[in-house]
C-alpha cells in the first residue's frame, strides 16, 4: 500500500435539519484496496459515499489524491473517481453504446462530440467487462445484472482509477450478484480501487481487502474480514444471532433463528 491515500476523510459530519447522519467520520482509502462498507439501513453509508463524491456538502475535511475536495471541478473529480449507481431505469431508451460513451463526454471540449476514438474506448470497455455483443441493444431492456455491467463499462471509459459503488448487487438475482462480485475482483486485479457499500457480510468476505463497519453515523470497526466480521459485530449491528464458521479457508456467516 502507498502512503498517500486516494480518499482521506477527517471528522466528517452531516445532518439533515432534524437528524444527524454522520457524527465525525475518519476514513481513508488507499490505492489497490477493495473496501466494503457494512452497516444497517440508515447508518450513513450512502451519505458517506455521496459526500466523498461531492454530490452533497457536509462539515469536515475531505481530500482526494492529496487535494481538498472543494478545489476540484466536477470534471477533475470524474477523472479521479467513477461512480456506479444502483442499476436503474432510463427515461429515454438509449443503446448500451450510448450509455457507455457518456463516460467520455466530460473530457470533450464544448464544440466537440464523441469521436471515433471515444467509441473505440467504449467498445474496448464493453469487451473488458465481457458484454461486447450487447453494444447495440437497448439499455432499458437489459436485466438488472446486465445494466450494472454496462455502468461498470461506462466507469472504465472515464479512465478513473477509483470506483465507488452504492449497493451494487441490490435487486440482482443470485447469479448476477456473484458475476458482479467476480467482475469487481477481476478489475481490482487490473489495478482499480473500489469502495462499495453492501448489506451482505458474506459479500464483504468474498470480495474485499478491508471491511469498514458503520453504526449510527460512526465508523466502529475497520480491518480484514476475519478481524471485523464476528458474531458480536453482527449482533450489535443487525441485532441477529449468527455463527461465523470457516470452510476450507473461507469464512461463512450462518444466521441462527431464535425459535
Amino acid at each position, binding site marked *: 500500500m502507498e502512503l498517500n491515500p486516494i480518499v482521506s476523510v477527517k471528522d466528517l459530519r452531516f445532518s439533515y435539519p432534524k437528524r444527524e447522519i454522520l457524527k465525525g467520520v475518519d476514513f481513508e482509502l488507499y490505492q489497490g484496496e477493495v473496501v466494503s462498507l457494512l452497516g444497517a439501513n440508515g447508518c450513513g453509508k450512502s451519505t458517506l459515499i*455521496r459526500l466523498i*463524491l*461531492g*454530490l452533497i456538502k457536509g462539515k469536515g475535511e475531505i481530500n482526494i489524491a492529496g487535494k481538498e475536495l472543494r478545489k476540484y*471541478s*466536477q*470534471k477533475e*473529480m*470524474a*477523472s479521479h*473517481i*467513477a*461512480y456506479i*449507481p444502483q442499476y436503474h*431505469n*432510463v*427515461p*429515454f*431508451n*438509449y*443503446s448500451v*453504446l*450510448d450509455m457507455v460513451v*457518456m*463516460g467520455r*463526454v*466530460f*473530457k*470533450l471540449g*464544448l*464544440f466537440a*462530440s*464523441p469521436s*471515433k476514438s471515444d*467509441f473505440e474506448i467504449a467498445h474496448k470497455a464493453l469487451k473488458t467487462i465481457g458484454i461486447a455483443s450487447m*453494444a*447495440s441493444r437497448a439499455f*432499458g431492456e437489459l436485466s438488472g445484472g446486465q445494466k450494472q455491467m454496462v455502468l461498470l463499462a461506462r466507469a472504465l471509459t*472515464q479512465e478513473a482509477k477509483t470506483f465507488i459503488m452504492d449497493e451494487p448487487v441490490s435487486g440482482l438475482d443470485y447469479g448476477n450478484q456473484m458475476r458482479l462480485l467476480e467482475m469487481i475482483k477481476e478489475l481490482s486485479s487490473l489495478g482499480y480501487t473500489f469502495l462499495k457499500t453492501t448489506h451482505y457480510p458474506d459479500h464483504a468476505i468474498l470480495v474485499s481487502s478491508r471491511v469498514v463497519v458503520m453504526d449510527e453515523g460512526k465508523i466502529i470497526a475497520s480491518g480484514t474480514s476475519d478481524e471485523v466480521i464476528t458474531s458480536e459485530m453482527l449482533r450489535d449491528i443487525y441485532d441477529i444471532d449468527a455463527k461465523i464458521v470457516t470452510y476450507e479457508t473461507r469464512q461463512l456467516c450462518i444466521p441462527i433463528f431464535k425459535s
Partner: protein
Amino acid sequence: MQKNSARWIVISLVVLLLFATFSLLWGQYPIDFHTFMEYLGYKLFGISSSDTSTFALLDNIILQIRLPRVLLAILIGSSLATSGAVFQAMFVNPLVSPGILGVLAGASFGAALGMLISNEWFVVQILAFVFGFLAVGLAVLIGTMVTNSRSTVMLVLGGVISGSLFTSLLSVIKYMADPYSTLPAIVYWLMGSLSSAELSNVLLISIPMLLSVLMMVVMSKYFDILSLGDEEAKALGINVKLIRIIAILLATLASSLSVVMAGIIGWIGLIIPHIIRMAIGPSHRVLIPLSAIFGAIFLLLADSISRLALSVEIPIGILTSLIGIPIFVIVLKNARASWN
C-alpha cells in the same frame, strides 16, 4: 453508430434543400425548374442564354415573396422542434414542448405587450423572451410545488396553468388595444402566419434563432447525461446547473422568437422529437440535429399546403394543429416503448 448518425443528418439536409427549392417554385405563379436554374445562374454568375427581361418578375416573386417565407419556415420549424426536444430532455419529460410548458403563450403575451407599449421591434422581441421564460418558470414552480419529486404529469399541468394565465393576460391586452389598428394586428399575428415575412426582418432574426439552434446542437452530447438525473450527471463530470439553465434559456429564446415572427405555431415541438425517437433512436446527439432539420421540413411542407390547398390561405398555426394532433395521438399510442 456514429457513421449512421452522420449519414442520417446528411440525407435529411439534402431532403430539406429539395423541399426548400420546391417551395420557391410552387405557388400561384408556378416557376419551372429550368427557368429557375437559369435565373439562379444569372443571379450568381451573371450568365444567361435566354431573355433576361422576365427575371425582374422572378426577382419580385422569389426574392421578395417566396424566399423570406421559405427561410422563415425553416427557421421557425427548426427552432420549435429543437426547443421541444431540449425541453423534453431538460425536464426528463417526454410530454412537454414549448406549447405545453406555456412558453408560446407567455411569449405571445410579451410580444403583444410590446406592440401595445412600443413600436420598437427589439422591445417586442425582448418582452416575448422575458415572458416566455417567466411562463416556463411558473410551470416548473407549479409542477414542483405540489409534489416534491419530479412528476411528469404535474409539470404538464403546471404548463397548462401557466399557459392559461398568460392567455388570459393576452386577452386583457386585446381588450385594451385599439380595435381599428393594434387589435386586428395582434389577432392576425397570433393565428400564425409566415406571409408577412420581409427579407430584411427575416435575416435579422435569423441570427439569434440560428445561433440558439446551433448551440443546442453543440450541447446535445450533454443532454443524454442530464436525463439520467442530477447526481449521476454530476458524477459523470458535468456541470449540471449551468448546462441546464443555458439549455432552457436557449430553448426559450428560440421558441419565443418564433412567436414574434409568426404567432403561435403549435405541436411541432411536441411531435417532431417523438417521431425521430421512434424512427431513429433516443440519443440526443442525433435527436437534436435531426429535430432541427425535420422541424424545418415539416413546417415547409405545412406552409406549402397552407398556400396551395385552397384559394384562400389557411393560417399556418391552424394547419400545424390539424396535422399535429392526429400524429401525436398515434405517437402516444406507440411511443411508450421509447421512453419507458
